[in-house]
């Protein structure tokens, strides 16, 4: 098990944070499409969720509308939904990611760890590269705006 975990570290990205909100509210904004579309972002994007069945094998289709009018399809399905504990979903559009979101109540606050496991290190590298290129374009556009 330990071994398997260390094998994954070169193809996963993980972020965690303690949120100043009780777990029932945090769970609600993660599992209700009416909420999730409001914060999912990224900055300057709007989101349309056509379906979000938060249950094992449930489908989740989210389209992100970029500020330049480009639409980005995100198709996923849920693998595990354990209330107030864990959500695992598989992103089947590119890039293929298995995302695990762990929730933990800490008094009136909630700790979340969000881990994205990529199919392979190669795919993670592709995504990081593309993201870097996109950021470069974005920064150039921001410069032009000034």
């Amino acid at each position, binding site marked *: 098990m330990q071994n398997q975990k260390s094998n994954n570290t*070169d193809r996963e*990205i993980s*972020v965690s*944070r303690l*949120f*100043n*909100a009780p777990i029932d*509210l*945090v769970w609600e*904004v993660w599992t209700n499409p009416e*909420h999730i579309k*409001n*914060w*999912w*972002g*990224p*900055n300057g994007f709007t989101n349309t969720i056509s379906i979000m069945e938060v249950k094992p094998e449930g489908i989740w289709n989210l389209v992100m509308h970029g500020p330049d009018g480009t639409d980005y399809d995100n198709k996923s399905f849920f693998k595990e939904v354990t209330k107030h504990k864990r959500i695992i979903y598989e992103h089947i559009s590119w890039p293929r990611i298995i995302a695990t979101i762990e929730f933990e109540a800490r008094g009136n606050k909630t700790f*979340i760890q*969000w881990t*994205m496991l990529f199919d392979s*290190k*190669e795919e993670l*590298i*592709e*995504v*990081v*590269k593309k*993201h*870097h290129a996109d*950021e470069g374009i974005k920064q150039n556009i921001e410069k032009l705006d000034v």
Partner: protein
Amino acid sequence: METRRDVFQAIADPTRRAIIDLLVTKTQNLNSLAENFHVSRQAISLHIKILTECGLVVINQQGRERYCEAKLDTLQEVATWVDQYKQFYESKFDSLEKYLDKLQKKKKHAKSKK
């Protein structure tokens, strides 16, 4: 015109990643490096060539031996790109944080009205 090879292309190959891992812990010559792999010395030599072209490895000639050394600052550049990508998810957390604050303020406001 010099075409610079892509650092990410270099580390996309598992053997080259293994070479870098070995060189980060210890600078060594081609022969001792090749002993760690099941592929031919020529194959390792080719990987080293690609790695030097990307600036991930430098070769120092010492007498008859050629020592391969990992260039940590180039590797640092790669780590910076990964951090930049991680920032994308951190910004989702920022947005979630703001949204949760907004909802809770609204709730409090509604309560104090009652």
